[in-house]
């Protein structure tokens, strides 16, 4: 209980502190913040619906690209659900692999996207928004995302979603049609990941094929593993990955891959979090 409160306080401090810090640290914090929203979106899909995506960069990256090509296209970003959801046809066990392969395919494809002479390996320039404003928007969205997920998770609707996740046949036997619940769950998760992608593009004012890279595909899984599948701890996990990579990359280039490797090893020990209860 004390640890849980301490984590919440630490997250709140991490959200407020950058407002008083220099521009570069704020940029880094904003990046961690968008990736925290990304992690929360992944966690909802994994915990409440039972689908562990290793290709969550699909809604994240596609929305970032749409926003960079034309900001008005951001309204189409929830449609990225229909890029990820069809992969559920492979079943829960193959879905992580299928989604990862698809995200790698998009990574390759993004190198060849050229629009009005721009794009390709260099990517696109995205509309840049004032950093203070975007930071404030990101904090608000992160808090709203957590509240939304908590609200859905504790509603009658959320109960049905969990019943479908636990045992689809048992859910059918009590009269629950699993398909709309699955589609809705994917839509919520993909929409949040899309928002994170758009914010990411707006913060850096640039989108490159790297948004589909394994760094982003695996990021929420790594952050959630560090956070043992709990929302607040996973937000902290996102900050840990971003800041640790930043601090240590001058000494160990591409240090995040070391964190990823450790998280992958730890995942087998912390797998039980998938069956534990959500604790916000």
């Amino acid at each position, binding site marked *: 209980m004390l640890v849980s409160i301490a984590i919440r306080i630490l997250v709140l401090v991490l959200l407020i502190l950058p407002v008083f810090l220099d521009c570069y640290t704020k940029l880094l914090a904003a990046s961690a913040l968008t990736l925290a929203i990304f992690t929360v979106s992944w966690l909802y899909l994994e915990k409440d619906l039972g689908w562990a995506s290793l290709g969550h960069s699909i809604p994240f990256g596609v929305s970032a690209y749409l926003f960079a090509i034309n900001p008005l296209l951001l309204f189409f970003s929830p449609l990225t659900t229909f890029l990820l959801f069809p992969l559920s046809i492979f079943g829960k066990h193959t879905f992580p692999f299928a989604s990862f392969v698809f995200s790698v395919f998009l990574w390759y494809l993004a190198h060849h996207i050229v629009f009005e002479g721009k794009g390709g390996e260099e990517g696109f320039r995205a509309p840049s928004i004032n950093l203070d404003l975007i930071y404030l928007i990101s904090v608000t969205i992160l808090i709203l995302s957590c509240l939304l997920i908590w609200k859905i998770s504790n509603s*009658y609707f959320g109960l049905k979603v969990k*019943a479908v996740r636990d*045992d689809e046949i048992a859910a059918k*036997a*009590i009269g629950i*049609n699993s398909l709309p619940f699955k589609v809705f769950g994917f839509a919520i998760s993909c929409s949040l990941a899309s928002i994170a992608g758009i914010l990411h593009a707006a913060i850096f004012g640039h989108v490159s094929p790297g948004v589909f890279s394994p760094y982003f595909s695996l990021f929420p899984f790594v952050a959630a593993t560090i956070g043992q599948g709990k929302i607040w701890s996973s937000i902290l996990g996102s900050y840990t990955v971003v800041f640790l990579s930043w601090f240590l990359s001058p000494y160990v280039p591409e240090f995040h891959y070391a964190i990823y490797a450790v998280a992958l090893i730890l995942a087998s020990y912390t797998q039980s979090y998938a069956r534990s209860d959500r604790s916000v």
Partner: protein
Amino acid sequence: MVKLLEAVEISLTMNSKKILDSVNLCFDRGINLIAGPNGSGKTTLLKILAGLLRPSSGKILLDGLDITMKKAHERVKLGIIMAPERMKLPLSLTVDENLRFCDRNRAYEYFPELKKISEKKARDLSGGERQMVILARAFAKNSKYLLLDEPFQGLHEKIKERIIKLLEEEGRKRGILVVTHDELEKIFSMSDYICVLTNGKLLYAGEKEGGEKILKKFFI
């Protein structure tokens, strides 16, 4: 007279093995016992009636209406509810949350002992407790037909007695199909309709009196 629930020429083949072979049955209100040795297709038949499995051929009729293509959740709305065997429950939900899918007060009336464990997660329950939740949920939901697969599995003798009484009461209001190996004699004595399956084929279907010899010879 139109029977409530009918299985017409139901066959099911899986992996080129015939699980059910042209089964014809008519169920009405009251207790309907489906008996037969292990692997005779009893549970499969219940799953087909509940919409959890689709037959290779044949029809399911409810009040004369063809519901063969209706999915399980649509059949629940039409009043066919199945209480599956082997502890099929959403395990991360508490007992109370599981009972939110039916009339909770009625469920607690049927099984007051569930109140004490209402905040326990289904995964932490014993086999008997899980079975009680499944039965409470099935009985406390309004239905025309209740399909019970091994309802006495893992239950204490006292609870078994209570369920037998409950079956007697509820059998007057709706149709109840029971597949069981436990308490077979008691269920047989209170049944209105008996059907016996062997190797996926219907050996007997009809009044209790006619089926007594067959049932006693093979199973009781």
